[in-house]
């Protein structure tokens, strides 16, 4: 009875509702997975925040060419590098306009002052804006920019020179990252004068293709296409981020036509999406790697034969099937195949328990040993289910007599303890920041990173020298050679079992044209039309 009434009420109310899924012709709706943490990308490290800010509202001096990890000119039309690799001179684009907001109307075009303000704020503790809004610039310091940039000089209104403390080839790729998004100094000055500097981080103006109109926390963000955008106005007129945290609901909205593009689908829904005539399921290998790191400073993993034996004993194909449900590819190198300098010729350890057992006996462990596998408590793109992965490895290793106990901690605790090297072996992964191989190899395996993000606590002189050499030259061919060689050393020494690179899926409505998956994980809507 009551249910009957409920249905009746529902039907009556629904009949009264109108036009629920009709969009204006040129509004694109992106069902994002969460709220941005804020609107100044320099403070944050989450992709969700970058999609809502840097990717669509801002520009950088150099930018990533859409769909690749290569850089192209952005707000700088070109740059020169001095022969010692210490000075980078940028020639800035003329006639670039900033957006306007409710309480700020720009009176001048983009120029060198804006570039200097953007970097000076983050690196110079004396800058009046440095401590505004908490003043923690995680990526700027994380990428070592605070120690790398010695000074920034204004040559003239449209020329800026960066002087570095040491030659660093990945510097250019760093400048294409989100934290390097250019802010308006004029707006900053206006707010400082008004005594409300923190407004710059809540309602900033950028030079990008879309300007923010309204943000309702946890609900939506509205943008309009910026008509004076220096590359020309975007093809759509309005862009809406409809914040929808649950993947099943995002899919329901996509089916109902309430959103046009959605990120991070449930792996279980992929088959159905593929069969849907209204949906175009796009996919690309992600710029990430999931790995198991041996603690190479702890016995028995100090012995390379033990590491090799466990690599041989692990059946990756079973993991790809069970954990990634097909949405992953076995990894043999620490960098993903979409990245330049990926060494195709490296031969991976094929699954071979017999050979593994022999190798283990040679190393003095004919009966195996006891150890642990740390499994992450959270789901990440490079590892959708660490617990399950650890269980499969535990089973594989037991066949050669290695008894592994699975250990897990709360996420923050997990990261902290593994940094200190409390583990025997630990599951973790990485998603690339700037498409430079250095951002994987040096960050995760360099000697400097031991006690930090180098979870294998592995410092190999031969490997590290190759990386240092590659850092110091801006000749890409030479760098490629060094990185390829480094990957051979890595495989031989086996500090990690490289497990998988996940495949990124993005279902979009059929009527959406021109959308491209960004290998760096961002979502750009400038080229999209409907």
């Amino acid at each position, binding site marked *: 009875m009551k249910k009957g009434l409920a249905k009746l*009420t529902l039907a009556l109310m629904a009949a009264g509702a109108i036009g629920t899924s009709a969009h204006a012709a040129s509004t694109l709706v992106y069902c994002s997975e969460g709220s941005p943490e804020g609107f100044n990308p320099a403070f944050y*490290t989450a992709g969700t925040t970058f999609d809502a800010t840097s990717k669509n509202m801002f520009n950088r001096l150099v930018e990533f060419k859409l769909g690749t990890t290569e850089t192209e000119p952005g707000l700088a039309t070109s740059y020169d590098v001095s022969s010692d690799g210490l000075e980078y001179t940028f020639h800035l684009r003329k006639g670039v306009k900033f957006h306007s907001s409710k309480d700020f109307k720009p009176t001048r075009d983009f120029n060198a002052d804006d570039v200097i303000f953007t970097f000076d704020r983050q690196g110079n503790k004396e800058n009046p804006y440095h401590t505004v809004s*908490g003043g923690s610039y995680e990526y700027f310091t994380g990428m070592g920019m605070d120690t790398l940039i010695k000074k920034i000089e204004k040559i003239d209104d449209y020329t800026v020179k960066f002087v570095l403390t040491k030659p660093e080839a990945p510097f250019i790729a760093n400048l294409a990252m989100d934290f390097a998004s250019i802010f308006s100094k004029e707006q900053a000055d206006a707010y400082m004068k008004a005594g409300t500097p923190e407004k710059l981080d809540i309602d900033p103006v950028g030079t990008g293709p879309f300007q923010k109109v309204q943000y309702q926390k946890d609900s939506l963000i509205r943008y309009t296409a910026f008509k004076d955008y220096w590359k020309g106005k975007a093809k759509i007129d309005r862009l809406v981020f409809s914040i929808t945290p649950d993947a099943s609901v995002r899919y329901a909205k996509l089916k109902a036509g309430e959103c046009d593009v959605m990120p991070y689908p449930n792996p279980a829904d992929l088959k159905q999406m593929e069969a849907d005539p209204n949906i175009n399921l796009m996919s690309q290998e992600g710029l990430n790697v999931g790995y198991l790191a041996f603690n190479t400073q702890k016995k028995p993993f100090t012995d390379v034969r033990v590491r090799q034996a466990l690599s041989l004993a692990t059946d990756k194909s079973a993991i790809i099937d069970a954990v990634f449900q097909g949405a992953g590819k076995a990894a043999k190198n620490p960098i993903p195949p979409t990245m330049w300098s990926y060494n195709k010729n490296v031969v991976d350890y094929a699954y071979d328990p017999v050979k593994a057992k022999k190798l283990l006996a040679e190393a003095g462990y004919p009966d195996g040993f006891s150890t642990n596998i740390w499994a992450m408590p959270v789901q990440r793109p490079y590892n959708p289910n660490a617990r399950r992965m650890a269980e499969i490895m535990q089973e594989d290793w037991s066949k050669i007599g290695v008894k592994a106990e699975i250990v897990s901690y709360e996420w923050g605790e997990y990261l902290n303890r593994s940094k200190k090297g409390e583990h025997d072996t630990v599951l973790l992964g990485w998603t690339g920041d700037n498409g430079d191989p250095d951002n994987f190899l040096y960050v995760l395996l360099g000697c400097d990173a031991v006690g930090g993000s180098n979870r294998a606590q592995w410092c190999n002189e031969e490997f590290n020298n190759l990386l240092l050499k590659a850092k110091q030259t801006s000749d890409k061919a030479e760098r490629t050679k060094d990185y390829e060689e480094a990957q051979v050393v890595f495989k031989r020494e086996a500090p990690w079992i490289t497990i998988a690179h996940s495949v990124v899926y993005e279902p979009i409505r059929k009527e959406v044209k021109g959308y491209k998956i960004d290998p760096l994980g961002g979502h750009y809507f400038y080229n999209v039309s409907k």
Partner: protein
Amino acid sequence: MFQFIFRRLSLVIPTFIGITLLTFTLIRLIPGDPIEVMAGERGVSAERHAELSAQLGFDQPLYVQYFHYVTGVLQGDLGNSLITREPVMKEFLTLFPATIELAVCAAIFAILIGLPAGIFAAVKRGTVIDHSVMTFSLTGYSMPIFWWALLLMLVFSVNLGWTPVSGRIDVVYWIDDVTGFMLIDSLLSGEEGAFSSAVSHLILPSIVLGTIPMAVIARMTRSSMLEVLSEDYIRTARAKGIAPWRVIVIHALRNALIPVITVIGLQVGILLSGAILTETVFAWPGIGKWLIESIGRRDYPVVQGGILIVACIIIVVNLLVDITYGIVNPRIRHSR
């Protein structure tokens, strides 16, 4: 009456102190360091960690931190979120209207359906109607909300296309945030169709969120009505020849309502404290989702402040329920 209210109010102070202490300690007892969680795989250096700790005040002894927190609260300052750096109070105020709107609609749904269903079942005791109402309400009571929400969504939004899937209003309407209540703002905007779009977005979440309270209210109404209906004065009233509907509505219902009001009060308190699952499924920007996310991120100020406000709301609702009792039943206010 005033004395009664005053006595109830004086109990609020120790409750308040208890809540601040509890939320402050509990969130710090959960393992996990907010700075590490913020940094993720990338990690922070030990120096940077120390610098941030000092900046956020985590390097001070716990009792000092608690003292700062409580003095802040007394001055109306709940601190700033560690993630968004916005004042907790401001975040709460932007999200709370959405929660109220949903809670009120869900409560209306629950009462409009639950109360008559309970009365009906009591009057028709032992019949097929009674049994089916009770079966439905038991089903409703034990319904897993997440599943129920997705089911309704698939049927009514995806397959039939009657209601929108999620959100508060269709994206074609660009409504200014005036009051935060979408129903009111959409009317104020004067845009054609905006109000009905806002209403249509409320239907499914209200039904989902109202299902359990509806079942509880129906069952409570039924048992309370059954008790009252067997009283002597009802028999007398019937013997006097008063119309059956008058006996039920005027004579029986008023007395049966007291326990029902308690239940409604408690349910509304729960609804106002945010509906985590419903809000998550329907992407409803309310405080339930906000609190859950901040626990995951170890955003101490939001957890402390948010729970404190929610607790205050529940205290106020309970107080109102007590006062309503006094109005409905004078015996209660005199006996205390």
